[in-house]
């Protein structure tokens, strides 16, 4: 299957955006999942709802929200731009950020599932063996919830390859900068004679997503086996 340089560019960019979005959202997702699972605090339900918002709000609205906040006139975007020279709109970083926000609930959900499988009795046992809070999180909780973390990361990566609405609204559709696979497919369908390109990219998109989901399942099984669960 011969791919044109533009098509390769879109694929490479999609992989880059998805990878960067996962690397940005993974640690906050673990922290939020831990808060939601293990802590009872005022505003817990609100945080839970907020995290899940990108699942139900139209992606375009998420993109618009980011544009309002992080645009170079926005309340966060302006100081970032004026003081640090950081511009997120219309950049690959911006596309990654928009993707991260969209896939955040996916990671949080998977990490929570992983954390819920960790028996608090084991953490109590670690306490009696002299492990302090951080020590037992790193040596007991984290390894035992790692199947959920890995599954969440892989799922979010696969989903991030195809994020459309938030990316196009916040980061626009710039070839080589922000034109990821779905944006390239969309552009192809809008171009006379672009049907062949659209079909090839759609197939690649489908294959990558499928591979990602299968990989996530495979990893989860391997990890559970490693932990002696099944």
């Amino acid at each position: 299957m011969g791919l044109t340089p533009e098509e390769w560019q879109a694929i490479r960019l999609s992989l880059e955006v998805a990878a960067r979005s996962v690397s940005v959202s993974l640690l906050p997702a673990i922290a939020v999942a831990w808060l939601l699972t293990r802590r009872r605090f005022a505003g817990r339900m609100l945080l839970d709802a907020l995290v899940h918002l990108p699942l139900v709000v139209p992606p375009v609205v998420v993109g618009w929200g980011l544009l309002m906040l992080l645009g170079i006139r926005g309340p966060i975007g302006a100081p970032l731009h004026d003081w640090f020279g950081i511009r997120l709109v219309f950049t690959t970083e911006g596309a990654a950020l928009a993707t991260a926000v969209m896939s955040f609930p996916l990671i949080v959900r998977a990490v929570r599932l992983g954390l819920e499988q960790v028996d608090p009795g084991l953490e109590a046992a670690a306490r009696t063996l002299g492990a302090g809070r951080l020590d037992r999180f790193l040596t007991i909780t984290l390894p035992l919830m790692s199947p959920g973390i890995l599954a969440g990361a892989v799922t979010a990566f696969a989903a991030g390859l195809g994020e459309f609405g938030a990316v196009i609204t916040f980061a626009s559709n710039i070839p080589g900068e922000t034109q990821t696979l779905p944006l390239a497919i969309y552009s192809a369908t809008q171009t006379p004679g672009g049907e062949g390109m659209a079909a090839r990219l759609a197939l690649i998109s489908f294959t990558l997503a499928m591979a990602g989901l299968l990989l996530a399942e495979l990893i989860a099984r391997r990890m559970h086996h490693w932990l002696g669960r099944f």
Partner: protein
Amino acid sequence: MLDVALRHRFGPGFTLDAAFTAAPRGVTALFGASGCGKSTILNAVAGLLHPDAGHVSLDGEALLDTARGIALPAERRRCGVVFQEARLFPHLSVLGNLRYGLSRAPREAKGPALEEVVALLGIGELLERRPARLSGGERQRVALGRALLRRPRLLLMDEPLAALDAPRRAEILPFLARLRAEANLPILYVTHALDEVDALADQLVLIEAGRVLASGGVEELTARTDLPLAARRDAGVLIAVRVAAHDAARGLTRLEFAGGHLLMPLHPAPPGTALRLRLRARDVAIALTRPAEISVQNILPAVISAILPTTSPHEVFLHLALGETRLLARVTRDAAERLQLAPGLEVFALVKSVAFDHARPA
């Protein structure tokens, strides 16, 4: 010396209010039915549960004192805990589990080396295995080793045998008995199984509905008829005996105790071994004269010191004194009346040799 006094309210229905002390070495058993609060006491001592009020002190050092605002976190109490479900870390090998506590023990803490614990518990073959590939008995041995290698000042065991079937229990008990003999630290042992008390306990704390009913030496408490222990089918006095001699030809072992001697079917322990024997009250019969031509091997002169009621209106407990040793016999009220039994009367206590099935290493 462990000193514990706790009060904790669980909702409206149940309040734990218990105080007791445990000797600086040997096993103190917290004995009671499920849900009586004994595991809660253990968790509070370990620091895994914060009680409403109370104190826990070990050798004069406060681990918990709500009045003074002291609550040492569990990770700094140096209490080794063996849980009912072992709670081994599934992602670590047996060796990794054993080392977990060892590497976190204070450097100056003394205790057995890894190799000694591995040898004591017979787990040398298992070191590379994951917990998922261990049997229940093996898991509990590893959990015990892990707790010991934490170099604890106090060992807490929460029904460590309750999740095991009879053969596995029999597999672990000797290790616990050896531990009790060798470990120079207080052991708090939560159980609802009387045979574990017989095998291991030096001191007994009887717990009912969140309160301490009685506490003291095991031999002393098992001789009391005012406690729920006496209502059990297997009620009877636990006595300390020593293997005096074996008569292989007759198939008998002669045991000495403070008030005389007993014959039991040949026992494997060598002469000199200290054992504990539960003489069940219902296995002891009474005769006014020394019977002849009778199969019963043990005919012990005794004096009735008291006659007390049982939970049944038709049966009574006889307290018997055999020198220093006290014995309980449970007979029908009719028999007591027929023989005109009364305190001060000299009688013979008859005990069948085959009645002893609870001879444990002491």
